């Protein structure tokens, strides 16, 4: 059907690169060229969020920005091409867009309704075969136009990549300010595009490593309240915030299981750090590791059956994989140097990690069986990888030569890292699954 028609186009695009990751490091990653002209509006009507004509333009610009940011698409410059009329939304002048080099066309409309809301429609076409591939329609309040734009962009992204959408996701991280010896750290949550930025903790005690629950309703994190390092869980909507365990022990590095009902974390006692898992329903805690050494940074596989973690039981930090009950612990990293902070990808195919070679730290990926290790970044102080929803993007923290630390994203398909602007220094990113 329609999907098959465009498939050859995709093969020249991002998917071909994913199948041959070695080539991606040397060649510029091919991308799918797409045209996103201004949406049409049948009549220009004023709304509290601007006129429908202005909203039409803003939606198209945001869709193009989203697609470009993903590094899997290249939006053509539409400024010099006349904007489609309303009838052209469903009957595009394909030759015009083919002439601009586009393989795909996203057109759409914004129409004001008598009840004050807007109807937004977007249509994805194969510019060569002139066939419609998919369409989306939304009924929104005018102020929600960004959401409609992200959903249109997600429709395009998912159609061509077969992955879940990226642009309605959220990012949690630690906001850092103040001098190094007295950092003020706060947990922040925001949309991936930077909007809806909220501080979840007040900054009165150091907080670290926020980790999303699978549904995006809660975060687990570590807090140093009054010098006592412990894991806490916060409800994002209500702000309800409580310790995971109230026994006064040293706990840190929490991570949710994919079912959202268990949290794996580290406990340090008498110089030995082990992994434990808590069942949130019953409160029962079970020890998973007991080997002398520091076992930490645990991360569940997407099916919940296995856990990746790091341990220095061999003398240096290395990556290990075990069953979720603690059995069958196996080391998977043997590349020399040290490895930390493993995170299992949502598609199960990779484990992202921080590679430590002397003072240099870089982000890499490795198969869960230890195969196909690959370093992705070229910074000197990159750490704390976190996967995007489809397992094709990694968000991480980077400290630059001036000492500033920020968030950066890299696509497995290749290309340069891309910064994610934050108002202050930012560390420990956690990227949520798609939020509907």
């Amino acid at each position, binding site marked *: 059907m329609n999907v098959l028609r465009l498939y050859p186009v995709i093969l020249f695009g991002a998917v071909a690169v994913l199948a041959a990751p070695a080539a991606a490091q040397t060649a510029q990653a091919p991308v799918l060229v797409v045209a996103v002209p201004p949406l049409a509006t049948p009549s220009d009507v004023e709304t509290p969020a601007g006129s429908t004509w202005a909203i039409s333009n803003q939606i198209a610009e945001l869709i193009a920005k989203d697609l470009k940011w993903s590094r899997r698409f290249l939006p053509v410059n539409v400024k010099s091409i006349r904007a489609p009329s309303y009838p052209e939304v469903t009957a595009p002048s394909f030759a015009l867009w083919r002439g601009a080099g586009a393989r795909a066309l996203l057109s759409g409309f914004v129409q004001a309704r008598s009840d004050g809301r807007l109807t937004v429609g977007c249509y994805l076409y194969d510019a060569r075969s002139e066939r419609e591939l998919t369409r989306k329609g939304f009924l929104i309040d005018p102020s929600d136009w960004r959401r409609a734009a992200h959903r249109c962009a997600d429709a395009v992204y998912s159609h061509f990549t077969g992955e879940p959408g990226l642009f309605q996701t959220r990012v949690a991280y630690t906001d850092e300010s103040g001098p190094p*010896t007295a950092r003020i750290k706060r947990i922040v949550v925001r949309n991936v595009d930077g909007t809806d930025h909220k501080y979840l903790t007040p900054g009165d005690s150091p907080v670290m490593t926020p980790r999303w629950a699978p549904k995006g309703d809660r975060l687990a994190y570590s807090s140093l309240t009054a010098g006592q*390092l412990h894991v806490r869980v916060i409800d994002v909507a209500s702000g309800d915030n409580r310790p995971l365990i109230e026994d006064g022990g040293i706990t840190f590095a929490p991570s949710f299981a994919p079912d959202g009902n268990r949290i794996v974390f580290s406990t*340090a006692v008498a110089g030995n750090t082990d992994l434990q898992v808590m069942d949130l329903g019953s409160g029962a805690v079970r020890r998973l590791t007991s080997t002398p050494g520091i076992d*930490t940074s645990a991360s569940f596989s997407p099916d919940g059956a296995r856990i990746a973690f790091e341990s220095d039981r061999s003398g240096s930090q290395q990556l290990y994989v075990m069953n979720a009950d603690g059995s069958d612990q196996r080391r998977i990293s043997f590349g020399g140097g040290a490895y930390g902070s493993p995170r299992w990808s949502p598609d199960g195919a990779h484990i992202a990690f921080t590679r430590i070679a002397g003072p240099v730290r870089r982000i890499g990926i490795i198969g869960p069986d230890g195969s196909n290790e690959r370093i992705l970044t070229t910074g000197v102080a990159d750490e*704390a990888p976190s996967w995007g929803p489809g397992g094709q993007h990694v968000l991480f923290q980077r400290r630059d030569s001036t000492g500033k630390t920020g968030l950066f994203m890299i696509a497995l398909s290749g290309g340069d890292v891309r910064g994610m602007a934050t108002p202050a220094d930012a560390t420990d990113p956690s990227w949520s699954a798609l939020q509907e």
Partner: protein
Amino acid sequence: MVRKLIRAAFMLTCLGGSTLAVSQPAPMLNPAALQVDLRAKAGSDTVFFSAQGYGLDASAIAMLRAQAAWLRGNPAIMIRLDGHADHSDTRDYAFGIAERRAAGVRDFLITQGVAPDRMSIASWGKERPGTIRVGTSTVGVGPRVVVTVR
């Protein structure tokens, strides 16, 4: 003058809390003043480690012996052993190794006659880099354990 007052305060500590409450103003016994005295008498309140290291070298052992002597001389004082890691450690590992350093210091202080129930342990990971003066400049130091009077 200040030192005399601090010394007087210590003697009172040894005599017991009930006398103190009536005869001495509380600020004399505040943890900050005691911390200053520990630094003065033992030479420092801190022992340092190599990056990734957690074993006690000769200078750390000499320092801990001096700190243990001060602690034996001030038996009513409770302390917290604050473990720290290097900024180049990954964040989670930093918490683990900082705790391991503090636990090692605790074990040594026990061998020097400091009662286990006087000591608690905190791990600060790489959240609070310390500083030392080298000549005229101040440089950051990570891997260390600080004996903190509570």
